[in-house]
């Protein structure tokens, strides 16, 4: 976090430059992984690999993009791991999800820096990322797996797409909420700041702590 989260003109710094950079490192590598992965997933989507420079190129670069994604995920764990622990507030948030979906936001308990849904997204990507890494390493070097350890490959071919599908589900919801649904959220991860009204509506606990801290420093 920046030392001075409360900025002028009614706006609040939500994500520091470092946080935004790591987010986009993860996002760009993930989108490449998802597109090339979908090309290998279904013959009806194989054309994606053709568009991205040919399936041989995709097969060679997909694992390296995975390394970048895992690196970004570890950085995110370092930045946000502690802030992602589940609290009582999150349980209340999950109970209020029907209200959240119907945009009855005044009935949704206000969250700390991250709400329950964001924490679910984080841990979903984190644990799926570990599964994707383990199975992905096996699929990267199939020729190094001897015949008597072939069960590792059998494990990998089912775990890798299953974990990837879970992340695609999270990805669809994350992108939808972050761009189309929750106006202001996309700006927070591009320019870094949100309006005070936004901060109070969705993350009041966080905003109030920031405001207290800022007042304390004066």
């Amino acid at each position: 976090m920046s030392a001075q989260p409360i900025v002028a003109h009614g706006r609040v710094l939500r994500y520091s430059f470092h946080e935004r950079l790591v987010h986009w490192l993860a996002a760009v590598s993930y989108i490449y992984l998802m597109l090339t992965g979908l090309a290998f997933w279904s013959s009806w989507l194989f054309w994606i690999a053709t568009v991205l420079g040919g399936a041989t190129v995709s097969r060679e670069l997909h694992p390296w993009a995975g390394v970048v994604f895992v690196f970004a995920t570890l950085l995110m764990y370092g930045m946000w791991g502690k802030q992602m622990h589940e609290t009582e507030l999150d349980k209340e948030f999950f109970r209020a999800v029907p209200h959240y979906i119907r945009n009855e936001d005044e009935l949704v308990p206000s969250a700390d820096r991250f709400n329950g849904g964001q924490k679910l997204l984080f841990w979903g990507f984190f644990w799926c990322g570990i599964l994707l890494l383990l199975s992905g390493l096996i699929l990267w070097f199939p020729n190094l797996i001897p015949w008597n350890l072939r069960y590792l490959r059998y494990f990998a071919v089912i775990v890798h797409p299953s974990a990837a599908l879970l992340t695609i589900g999270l990805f669809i919801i994350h992108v939808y909420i972050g761009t189309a649904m929750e106006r202001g959220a996309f700006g927070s991860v591009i320019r870094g700041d949100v309006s005070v009204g936004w901060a109070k509506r969705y993350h009041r606990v966080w905003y109030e702590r920031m405001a207290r801290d800022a007042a304390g420093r004066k």
Partner: protein
Amino acid sequence: MSQAILEIRRISGHAGSVPGAGVRREFDVCKLIDTTTCIGCKACEVACLEWNGLSFSETTFDNSYQTMPETQWNYWNLIKFNEHEREDGTLQLLMRKDQCMHCEEPGCLVACPADGAIVQYVNGIVDFQQDHCIGCGYCMSGCPFNIPKFSPTARKVFKCTLCVDRVTQGLEPACIKSCPTGCLHFGTKTEMKELGEARATQLRDHSGFANAGVYDPPGVGGTHVVYVLHDATNPEAYGGLPKDPHIPWTVRLWKSPLKWLGNLAIVGGVVGVFVHYLRFGPKIAPPDEETPPQSGTLPRGSAPRQGDRP
């Protein structure tokens, strides 16, 4: 015979139908390997290298006559030597020519994501097309016989072609041509099954091999390479020939139920969020009613604004 040989029945990673499939009269080709008359001379190994222009690889000595532990990307035909102690204490030296079995239900083709990298011809030959291969190695996980092998230099996978280039010209595969004992035969599947069964009957009735039989595993839909074994109840003794080979269940699960569930979930998810937007629209945070606390400076790139827009 020759024109129909290159008619394709199935294509890996291919969206849509197979061009021309089922148009002509079909017939299957088949190799018959009689392990009971193999003498382990390895003429077939040499003929395979010669015909396919492969260089001779380094051999591995492991206290047996076997050239190397398993087939390699540039060594497609390997006789497996196994000393087998029978129940009565007598010793048998089992020799089995190992190569691609050309399954009727090929696990390699099912697992392959690359359009056209693996084709199955109408005559049963399963052939890798290296110009379409992307080197992912999924075929190695689909195969129950440990046959497709990855070349670290070419970064593609190779295996026995059943000498498709010879077969199209009406010739038998190179290994068959080189066999000095006549333990290798080539013809239609029906003929080879008949010949194999006749030999197995002979072994049972006249040579004291009560369990002699033909190996044509139904778990992969039958194969276009069939064996005559002295003891068909114990194929594992012949250098690990699987007793009941199947495409691994995880590969099957991945390629059919998971694929359809996953596709439905992805389409459902995209449609779901779109419909949600139509029904409920965006969330717009109200502008702040109080004066915001003033502290610090404006971050670069952020302009004072009312309300929020992405």
